[in-house]
């Protein structure tokens, strides 16, 4: 596991996302409206939709391809669909706003 400094919260819009490649895997970072930053693998368990392009509602993202809903805290797909996306630990330095991702 490595922890890396990947940037600042200000790099991600509220209810928006950014992506990043680590060891060949694409990770999507989301910033919720309350400021929390969450990270999941950028791949919908359904047909691989890029979740980073989806709409963020509360702490859920809607996949842009077929609208599956994924809880960004747990990575779990919401009913009626099933499945799970890997999640990654994110820390935000409350003072500087630096974002650290553990992969």
């Amino acid at each position, binding site marked *: 596991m490595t922890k890396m400094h990947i940037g600042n919260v200000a790099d991600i819009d509220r209810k928006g996302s950014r992506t990043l490649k680590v060891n060949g895997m694409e990770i999507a970072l989301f910033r919720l409206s309350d400021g929390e930053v969450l990270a999941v693998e950028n791949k919908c368990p359904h*047909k691989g939709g890029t979740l980073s392009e989806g*709409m963020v509602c509360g702490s859920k993202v809607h996949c*842009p391809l077929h609208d599956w809903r994924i809880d960004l805290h747990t990575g779990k797909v919401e009913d009626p669909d099933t499945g799970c996306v890997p999640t990654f630990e994110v820390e935000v330095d409350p003072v500087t706003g630096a974002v650290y991702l553990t992969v």
Partner: protein
Amino acid sequence: MTLFRKKLVLVGNGMAGVRAIEHLLKLAPDAYEITIFGAEPHPNYNRIMLSSVLAGGTDLSEIVINDYEWYRSHNITLYTGHQIESIDTVNKKVRSDLGVEAAYDELILATGSDPFMLPLPGADKEGVIAFRDIKDCQIMMETSKTYKKALVIGGGLLGLEAARGLLHLGMEVSVVHIHHYIMERQLDMEAAVMLQRELEAQGMKFLLSKQSEAILGKKRVKSLLFADGSSAEADLIVMAVGIRPNTALAKKSGIAVNRGIVVNDYMETNIPGVYAIGECAEHRGIAYGLVAPLYEQGAVLAKRLAGVQGQGYEGSVTSTKLKVSGVDVFSAGQYDEPAGSRALRYQDEISGVYKKLVISEDKLIGAVLFGDTADGAQLFSLIKSSESIQGKERSLLLGLPDDALKSSPSARLEAMADDEIICGCNGVSKGAIAEAITTGGCTSVGQIKACTKASASCGGCKPLVEGLLELYAGDAAVKVKEGICGCTTLGRDEIVAEIKRMKLKTVKEVMNVLEWTNEEGCSKCRPSLNYYLGMLWPEEYVDEKESRITNERYHANIQKDGTFSVVPRIYGGVTSPGELKKIAEVAEKFDVPMVKFTGGQRLDLLGVKKEDLPKIWEELDMPSGHAYGKTLRTVKTCVGSTFCRFGTQDSIGMGIRLEKEFERLNTPAKVKLAVSGCPRNCAEATIKDFGVVAIDGGWELHVGGNGGVHVRATDLLCVVKTEDEVVEWASAFLQYYRENASWNERTSNWVERVGLDSIKAALDNREDRLALGQRIRTALSVTTDPWKQIVAERELRKNFEPISPIETA
């Protein structure tokens, strides 16, 4: 640890076989290494729903039951497009026509059946097909685009569903039937005649008591000749006269075959290790042709293969429904009054209801319902349980307990036993549905479907599920149905009225004030609120980009692999060598994998990486085409009077003018325009949202067309003389649509919902038109070129680029 797994091979990737595998995976996920061969080039799909695909409302992609990913994630090796040609039952191997061999320890045959094709002379002509699989369905859809006349041979369940679908596709359809009334295998004459009348009202024609004799035509079918010497013209003939268990493979492999592949109560054939289920199998002398029994067989076989003790299969009593819109027909058991039985009938010609109960001794053995099928499930379960119904005949016939003859339909549902099956396809009982509502908290049919699978297949039981929902969820259910999405109970009009009344100015405000249940809404309501607010307050409202659909947020069309496409705007389809060169150079420079003409006369650069989007826009330095948003897309034009020898007006000029006028306009759903230079209509203006067709000395204006899933030809709005008038009417129509349609509602649906007359009335007065025109210009005046803006602003541009880690801590 290495696990020894037995090898299981399934031949036939259809409904019965894969259902058995699904069951087996639940019971014994690791017991087998599974290989499936299917002759069709598709993953497992819901054959029943082909009727719904034809009848519209369902897309082919929606009927897939298990997609490729499902096979992969269960480590199933799948060979689609492979037909098994031989089984070596000695060395336990199968071999496909493409040369793939697979060894097995256990083998399941689920090869389904073949449609029976009448051996008429000429049956091999082009345009003669069956109704069995996706391919047939596609041929029908294709054919309906160029041909008009269809004949369906066979007035049974399948034939009528095919005929309904063909009607929907816009063809003239006649059903040819050998019997003197339709569906004689399921209905008696009284019900059949009522059904026929109903279908005739929908536009179907019938040729009864007709024996087909020969199919005439050169290469393609032209007409059908009958034994009585008469004939009927046809461009397409669909044969739906029955099916035959597909047993050829079994037969030549030495497996015992009668009508179907003979199996015992555990679905075993005469060869050890070889099983058969589904339409290809014959159990106790019966080969079934419906899904419910096949699923029961699958469950028995799965248990057998998983080594779970269980009861064998004892045969099924079947029931059928006709899945044709607007007609409710149900029949179950023995409806044709076998010797020693008596029948009770109820017929109400006024409300078009017919019921028949067939009783033998004191047991119910069959039932036919027409017009009101609500009692079907209850009657069906009485037939299956074969309990005595003595003394209850009257209440069963009238569908009500004797003491509650005047009570509501919900009383009937309430009185129903808990173990009565509501959804036959998936075997869901009333009790299971009631529980999903009362303890599972389901408040909509969608949720019940997700939770129990009830009405997830053919959908025939939906009315009952809705009834149960109303019964057990009461008000909660009704409210949910009305809202624009699951976050609110309010409908579109209420929301718009409240926004106006309380002068709400942001999405968040609307959700707060109107008490949204999900604090931040969902992907349905957020874009709609964003649209309504922008439409109501064009000059003040700050567009909320995070509430826009993906395509509009990235200003490009997201493709299935996560890449995007860029469609430079080419006004009226007219471009220049300079522009073409620029597009070509950009495509080359960014290695765009595909450049394609769109259906709307544009060039589509497909397969662009997200991070390249801003750079491409920058280099193109052309507005991109809004080729994907809920906005004005293209204005298609023909060559018109500029070059065409038929053209009466300058359609190119008119098209360009309209496109420049309405470019960037936000609309409830996508909007497409077209201008044709004469009534030959080469720009296909009569399937557009707003179509303009030049006539000598003027222009016809057409509205509400759609060339998509539900093809709809336009209605004529009016005829005008000048180009200015065209713009005046187009502005008024589009603005009126913007103000009154629901988000995501195409003009075709909107025109049908509100009626053309109400639109004509609203636009009739010139003053009203000018006012609408003024409002659309205000809305347009605040739009900007989103591509230019992204290219220019670092803050917007960053979202297209990946983050790069700064250091490793």
